């Protein structure tokens, strides 16, 4: 059964004599129990989609159904079944993580006992136990974000909208959050996750969609997206090579103060031999989801000019 069905969903923001089309005829379905990823650069339309699907924003045209209920026509029925981590949300400054989780669960209708036991569970799983009784105003940004995410992941909502839930968290905390997200899915929740961490999307999602300029460019598994890149291996040289020298081996990008070449397995040996002859360190790895994403949306995007192809 489909948990979410969006049909020809469009949204145009108007104001100040300008109009911006944030979503352009988006068709999307998410199956029940799926952990679905939404990738796209800033302003691509991810948050707009989530806000409409969660009943927080009206679409310009098109429809979204959640578990068969129209979100625009029946927002109350839909809201009863969802929970959302908003992008850049922040907890109450005067409440502790434990209070956040317990009070939020009770506001959602859980009993005091259930709220307490779930709070214990989720605070432990997300590494918040040592800070459970510290007011949020004394917590770091990452811990505050974890508190907000803990509130939502402690619920038994059937559909979870997680808009960049691990923003600002350290790698350890991110992995703890991933585990709790996986547990929610195991318990029957459907999750729509947006993230700029492509390793997160690769680790977590069953399927993902890449959105660009309000349109869905790709929908499929992370592996299938990676296979869209013709090259299989990426080599990064911090120095010692020019873009012209590397160009015959594949696509070359300026990256992290050096050069990265995307190439085939067959050419790796030749390139590493050249690097060894010049006594240059080389970093070799498989093509990542990030490479596939950048290839799909195009590297020559304004915000990432530094990674525009050189050759």
């Amino acid at each position: 059964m489909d948990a979410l069905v969006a049909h020809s969903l469009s949204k145009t923001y108007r104001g100040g004599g300008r109009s911006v089309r944030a979503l352009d005829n988006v068709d999307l379905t998410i199956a029940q129990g799926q952990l679905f990823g939404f990738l796209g650069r800033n302003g691509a339309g991810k948050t707009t989609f989530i806000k409409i699907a969660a009943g927080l924003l009206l679409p310009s045209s098109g429809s979204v159904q959640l578990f068969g209920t129209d979100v625009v026509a029946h927002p109350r029925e839909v809201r009863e079944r969802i929970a959302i981590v908003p992008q850049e949300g922040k907890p109450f400054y005067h409440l502790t993580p434990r209070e956040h989780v317990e009070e939020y669960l009770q506001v959602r209708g859980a009993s005091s006992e259930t709220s307490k036991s779930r709070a214990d569970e989720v605070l432990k799983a997300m590494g918040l136990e040592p800070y459970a009784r510290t007011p949020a105003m004394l917590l770091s940004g990452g811990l505050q974000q974890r508190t907000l995410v803990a509130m939502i992941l402690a619920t038994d909502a059937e559909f979870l909208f997680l808009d960049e839930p691990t923003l600002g968290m350290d790698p350890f905390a991110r992995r703890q959050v991933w585990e709790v997200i996986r547990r929610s899915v195991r318990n029957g929740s459907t999750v729509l996750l947006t993230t700029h961490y492509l390793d997160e999307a690769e680790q977590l999602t069953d399927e993902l969609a890449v959105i660009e300029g309000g349109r869905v460019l790709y929908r499929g598994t992370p592996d299938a997206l990676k296979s869209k890149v013709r090259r299989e291996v990426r080599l990064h040289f911090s120095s010692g090579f020019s873009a012209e020298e590397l160009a015959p081996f594949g696509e070359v990008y300026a990256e992290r103060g050096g050069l990265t070449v995307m190439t085939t397995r067959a050419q790796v040996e030749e390139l590493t031999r050249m690097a060894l002859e010049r006594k240059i360190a080389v970093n070799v790895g498989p093509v990542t989801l990030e490479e596939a994403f950048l290839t799909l949306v195009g590297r020559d995007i304004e915000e990432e000019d530094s990674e525009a192809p050189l050759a």
Partner: protein
Amino acid sequence: MTWRRQANAVFRICWFNGFLGLVRSPLVFVALFLTPLSFLFFLYVVAPRAELPFGVVGGVLFSCLFTGSGMMNDCAYLRLERQLQQVFITSPLRPISWVLGMALSELTFTIPALVLFLGVLTLVISISIGAFFALLGVIILTWLLASSLGFLLSTFFRTLREIWPIGMVIFTTLSVLPPVFYPLAAVPASFRWVAYLAPSTFASQLAVRAAGLPAASVPSVPALGSIPAELLGLVGLAVLFTGVAMRFARWREP
């Protein structure tokens, strides 16, 4: 979610947002006393002693009206800066329960000031039990009216920067300019009806009558200056403001 659970949620919001917010930020406590007490002190120094009870009644009403300003600020802050309104309304909690919980929180912030002013009032005039409950009714209606207005306004802001000037204009117009801290009799007789353009005048005149203080007549519109008209006005406006807030408040961005 059942009505019982909704009611429980309302009190939970009042508990963690209002009560815990108050006890963990004592400065809020001080700030809430400061403005009405300053007005009261000013009246004590410059006004004739006979007018002091009007100032105390004014302090009671100002505190109630201030819940509207607090409601506007807090709701806008939780929606725009913290994005917590979105977190709470995307849940089985009904939007009206969220509003009621927030309004009760604001009332919680105001209760210490109300207790103080009501205490002072009993010192400056003798007040019967019946009058006390009448005053309590006016307080509740004024709180409802101010909270509804505050919430409605909060949903239209796009940035926190807009709140300060708009809040100042609206709540100063409601609480300082009309005869809240001074008697209606101080307004020239032929212009007294103008004061009733502010909803707070209905509340202040009812409160003045409940406290047993002399209420002024409105010669140009005599029906206005009567208890039934003022009661009808206050109840009608409270219901109207609440209805408008529930109907037109923007739960979804357009």
